């Protein structure tokens, strides 16, 4: 039998159960500092040095110092991130702090959203008071090779039945995109519209890697990388980094910036092997999304602005379905209708240009949180959605292997 759909199962632990304790966590903590490095190229800069720029930037933004920090979250052990298997310890040492709360859970690109949700629980229970979440990577110059990086598994155990065929990261996204076309009639033009829309947003962001407007025809005319995905269906590859500071709602009141509260959070992991891709292309976002909305007491209709991980054009499309912004199989028509546009769309998405145009060092989930914070504060570097009060930050890891969703409010 094929891998079944990923859905909340009644009576199991992954159902849409949200306990009173989880609902009480809603709004108890806040992001009080945020910083994105303007760098897109950082030649010969070690990723830890870039993380330090980001951590100090986020602390300055909050009006705090390293002396205030007792919690550190990072996932820096992957290729071009600079760390080994005990990366969070290496990073703490490099920074020069001895944190008593740490989290280096690595579930791919959405790790930082998962870490923010768990930091909220730690802060609310008193395990930590001021937590820094930090990320940087420098893939453009990183000199060390790590053969197992792509696609994240070893040619032993479960991976021995797949890695010898040399799947690429992009070809696995290609499997998803091709099947979406077969199942739901999605077209290459609809996929391309995602890249076109986010490039329109990037044009207004002076920090974005690529800012020249493109057309659907440009996307389709760009070289095929792994069918059906063209070069312009793929994210940019940049160096870069960012950091966030979180603390309690009470402490946030006395700090420099308008606090952005964590209203909802959910995360889930499901699979790594291609053979386990669910028949209907459902992803763990079908678990993380409902949990985040339930914790916040909200529905997709409440979201004013969204940042949805876009490693490839198919990436945000599946998330739109799993999160309930459209029905299963309807994301092609949804994006083609311009609904993601910040100028006239009903769900302004990836207002900074996203991974397709602004930046993508490898695990860009932290940037979905940072741009959400900027939108809610009204200090976005590019397009600003007016009067946004509820933001959604959503990421995935690997090839739809994991998902994490955060709902932020002011």
């Amino acid at each position, binding site marked *: 039998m094929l891998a079944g759909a990923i859905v909340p199962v009644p009576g199991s632990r992954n159902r849409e159960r949200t306990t009173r304790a989880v609902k009480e966590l809603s709004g108890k903590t806040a992001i009080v500092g945020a910083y994105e490095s303007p760098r897109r190229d950082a030649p010969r800069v070690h990723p830890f040095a870039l993380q330090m720029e980001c951590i100090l930037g986020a602390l300055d933004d909050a009006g705090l110092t390293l002396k205030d920090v007792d919690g550190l979250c990072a996932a820096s052990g992957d290729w071009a991130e600079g760390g080994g298997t005990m990366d969070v310890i290496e990073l703490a040492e490099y920074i020069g702090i001895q944190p008593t709360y740490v989290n280096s859970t690595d579930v791919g690109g959405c790790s930082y959203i998962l870490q923010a949700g768990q930091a909220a629980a730690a802060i609310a229970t008193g395990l930590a008071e001021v937590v820094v979440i930090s990320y940087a990577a420098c893939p453009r110059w990183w000199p060390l090779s790590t*053969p197992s990086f792509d696609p994240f598994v070893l040619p032993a155990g479960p991976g*021995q039945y797949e890695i010898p*065929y040399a799947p690429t990261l992009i070809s696995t996204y290609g499997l998803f995109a091709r099947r979406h076309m077969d199942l739901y009639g999605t077209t290459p033009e609809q996929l391309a519209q995602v890249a076109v829309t986010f490039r329109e947003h990037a044009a207004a962001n002076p920090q974005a890697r690529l800012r020249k407007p493109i057309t659907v025809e440009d996307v389709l005319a760009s070289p095929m990388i792994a069918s059906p995905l063209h070069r312009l269906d793929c994210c940019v590859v940049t160096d870069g980094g960012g950091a966030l500071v979180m603390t309690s709602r009470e402490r946030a009141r006395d700090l420099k910036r308008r606090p952005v509260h964590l209203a909802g959070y959910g995360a889930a992991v499901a699979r790594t092997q291609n053979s386990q891709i669910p028949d209907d292309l459902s992803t763990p976002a079908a678990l993380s999304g409902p949990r985040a909305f339930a914790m916040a007491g909200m529905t997709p209709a409440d979201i004013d602005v969204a940042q949805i991980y876009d490693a490839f054009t198919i990436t945000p499309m599946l998330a739109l379905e799993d999160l309930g912004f459209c029905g299963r199989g309807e994301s092609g028509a949804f994006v083609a209708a311009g609904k993601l546009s910040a100028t006239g769309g009903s769900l302004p998405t990836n207002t900074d240009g996203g991974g397709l145009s602004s930046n993508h060092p490898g695990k860009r989930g932290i940037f979905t949180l940072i741009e959400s914070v900027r939108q809610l504060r009204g200090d976005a570097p590019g397009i600003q959605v007016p009067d946004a009060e509820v933001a959604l930050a959503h990421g995935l890891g690997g090839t739809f292997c994991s998902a994490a969703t955060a709902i932020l409010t002011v």
Partner: protein
Amino acid sequence: MTAITTLPTLDETSAPFWEAAREGRFLIQRCPETGLYQWYPRAHSIHAPHATPEWVEASGRGELLSHSVVHRGNTRGDPYTCALVRLEEGVAVFSRIEGVAEADLRSGLPLAVAFHRLDDTISLPIFRPPSDAGASDA
């Protein structure tokens, strides 16, 4: 084959699969309690976690579920086709498609397993059109 640079690392669980592949047979696992098939091979049944799965020979026939032709990114030579193949027994396996032009690749295309002998231990299963006789070099 293009870009086969990484061979599988065998273990106690996987050895019967690769020994059978060396003989040109494609094995999958079946749960002794539920009768349900599973892929990929594990030491336990995902349908009844305390049960030890049994090996059964698959028909080797299936159909194309999804595919992606790798043109750039990992090729040192010609493009190659990564694919998900739905076996007759119902499980999906990840493999390569050979002997089909890119323009002819479509969902539901009938396929049959063939084997490429890579060394004395490993014969790697790939899939071809069923009429493509004599494709195995196992």
